[in-house]
């Protein structure tokens, strides 16, 4: 492979392979090698801190239900939450294209500030670069964050064990459809809003039962299917998922039908999957459903010790087949 393809950034197998073969190879260390959404590091004091980073290149910059500012804060707040950490401090770096409207920049900045306040985190430092027209597409951002992990909390992609329940916090695909419908060439008029929201508060609630929660992941790029596969590979376990139990709005299904997309591979920015010990599943589900971010949560399957590393789906019509990871980028198709 000579050149980077768009598929390398899509969150699926191409990206995973690149990360393993280039970056893990170059930088490998125990914290990085776990390839969780963030790194949890034990300090010499004994306290554990988590840190995470993410970059945002969403197009369009403003979409139904959010914008790049809100997304930038939520992304890192959520990555830290998925490590079991309480997010405290965020950095915000911006790379802006020459000619970008100042009023848009202000709108983005205010949105980021509002989201940070909503999440209870502080933006403590940042960076600003401006590049000539055409060198970036309007505005790209990066946020990094630091949080602390409470004693007793042990949340990682490699913790899933046979018998555990798989809980999903709500509807799949809203964010990606909301973003796509704003792009030229898709021409879909939809009332779907991005689900972009901070998840730290709802996660803190379920971590009040730290012994129950084995793994937390938010299905962003690559979608739910990719996320569940990552967990299976990291944990060396299998999963059985019931398609009929996975919440997808009918409007999202229709949009997928029109574009030739599959809801299992759509990005979400305000949902998470929780792998919990079976005996706590009912309680955890009730806690999640009591919060506005988790009203539509459901148990969608379980972890098993057969077909390790793979997710098997019970389909809507009662058949069974493998639910694989996203390969490259998901392209609209007519066939």
């Amino acid at each position: 492979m000579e050149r980077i393809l768009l598929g390398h950034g899509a969150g699926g197998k191409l990206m995973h392979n690149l990360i393993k073969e280039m970056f893990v190879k170059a930088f490998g260390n125990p914290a990085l090698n776990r390839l969780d959404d963030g790194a949890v590091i034990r300090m010499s004091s004994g306290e554990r801190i988590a840190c995470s980073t993410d970059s945002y290149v969403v197009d369009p910059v403003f979409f139904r239900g959010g914008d790049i500012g809100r997304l930038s804060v939520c992304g890192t707040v959520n990555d830290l939450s998925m490590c079991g950490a309480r997010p405290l401090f965020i950095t915000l770096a911006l790379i802006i294209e020459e000619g970008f409207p100042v009023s848009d920049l202000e709108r983005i900045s205010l949105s980021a500030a509002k989201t940070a306040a909503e999440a209870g985190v502080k933006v403590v430092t940042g960076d600003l670069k401006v590049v000539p027209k055409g060198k970036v597409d309007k505005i790209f951002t990066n946020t990094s964050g630091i949080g602390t992990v409470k004693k007793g909390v042990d949340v990682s992609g490699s913790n899933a064990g046979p018998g555990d329940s798989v809980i999903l916090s709500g509807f799949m695909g809203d964010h990606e459809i909301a973003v796509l419908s704003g792009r030229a060439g898709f021409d879909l008029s939809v009332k779907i809003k991005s689900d972009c929201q901070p998840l730290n508060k709802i996660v803190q609630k379920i971590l009040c039962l730290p012994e129950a929660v084995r793994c937390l992941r938010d299905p962003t790029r690559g979608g739910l299917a990719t996320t569940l596969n990552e967990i299976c590979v990291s944990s060396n376990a299998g999963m059985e998922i019931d398609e009929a139990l996975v919440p997808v709005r009918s409007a999202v299904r229709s949009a997928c039908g029109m574009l030739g997309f599959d809801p299992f591979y759509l990005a979400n920015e305000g949902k998470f999957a929780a792998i919990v010990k079976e005996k706590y599943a009912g309680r955890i589900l009730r806690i999640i459903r009591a919060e506005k971010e988790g009203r539509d949560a459901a148990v969608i399957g379980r972890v098993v010790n057969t077909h390790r590393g793979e997710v098997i789906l019970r389909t809507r019509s009662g058949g069974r087949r493998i639910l694989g990871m996203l390969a490259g980028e998901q392209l609209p198709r007519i066939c």
Partner: protein
Amino acid sequence: MKYISEFYDKRIAAGLSGAIKKIAPARELNFMDVCGTHTMSIAREGIKDLLPANINLISGPGCPVCVTPDEDIDRVIGISGQKNTTIVTFGDMLKVPGTRSSLEKERGKGADVRIVISPLDALEICAKNSNRKIVFFAVGFETTSPGIAAAVAEAARRKIKNLFVYSSCKLIPPAMEALLKNRKVKIDGFICPGHVSTIIGSSAYEFIPREFGIPCVIAGFEPLDILQSVYMLLKQIREKRKKVEIQYKRCVAEEGNPVARKILSKVFRPSDAVWRGLGKIPRSGLVLRKEYKKFDAGSRAFPPRSISGRDLALPLRRVGRLVAKGAPNNEAKASNPKCRCGDVLCGIITPDKCGMFGGKCTPESPVGPCMVSSEGTCAAAFKYRHTSNVIRRTF
């Protein structure tokens, strides 16, 4: 979703599964689909789980992307390298490998390649880029080609000067005939393509039961449609009837869609075409009629440039001779001699029997189009494969 959700009811599926098991004979039967969307539906829904072990659902050359020969992809890649030229195509075509490269890779190197969902979108791109040649790489069967014809007719009406069409459009019934004549695989029934049939109707398949004694059922795409179609084929076999039946009656009329066919034949005419895996099939492709020749990107106006020093600019005369000789599988050999896409496309082998399946050839690093196409037989098998120790049968 109306007209969709009713057709994947689990309980009805279980009932159909039981009914199928009751009327299935003991011997092995091969039912072939010739539509990539059927291949995908069958795989995605795990339909084979609901059928008895002796009923094999095999895939034929139903993926228009997979049957596009290397030479077409190479020529379009060549065109992409010309000045002020934009290639416009369906997302399905982006990753398909030609001899050396793909449109996706060329885009990575700076070629202007854009995806559209409808051929009409190409007209908008023409209007917004009047200084560029917009070349639409047209791939599809009879479901899609009327839309391409309508777009060309509209371009003519609007006097658009910068639209060009490279047609790799093909017709399904001639391919079915070629498959039956080459007799390399035993076919006991056809699951006929539902959406192609909304256009061509049922009479297009009449030659199959009449000349070859094989039953046909025109099927929809939801799980219950496919299960009912299998049931209908088994009923025909049991009752020793051989005819063309329509399962997908809510969308397919016997006469098809005459309006669509009229527009199609106004702009295109059938011509011989090379299919990967099947070689040259007479009157199985579509070329622009001479009234629309000015839109034709397959003509001398677009000589391909050379790629990596090797001159791919086959003079059109030589291409013509290759086609006339019926270069069967030449294109497969030109790429990778171990690639067995040609045999997979004819249903001669299942994907797992190709030595490269899952090893050298995977969706992330595909060797042949059956793996790279979103609805290729190998892609479906890989993406939706059963692990043999969980479910009783592999693909």
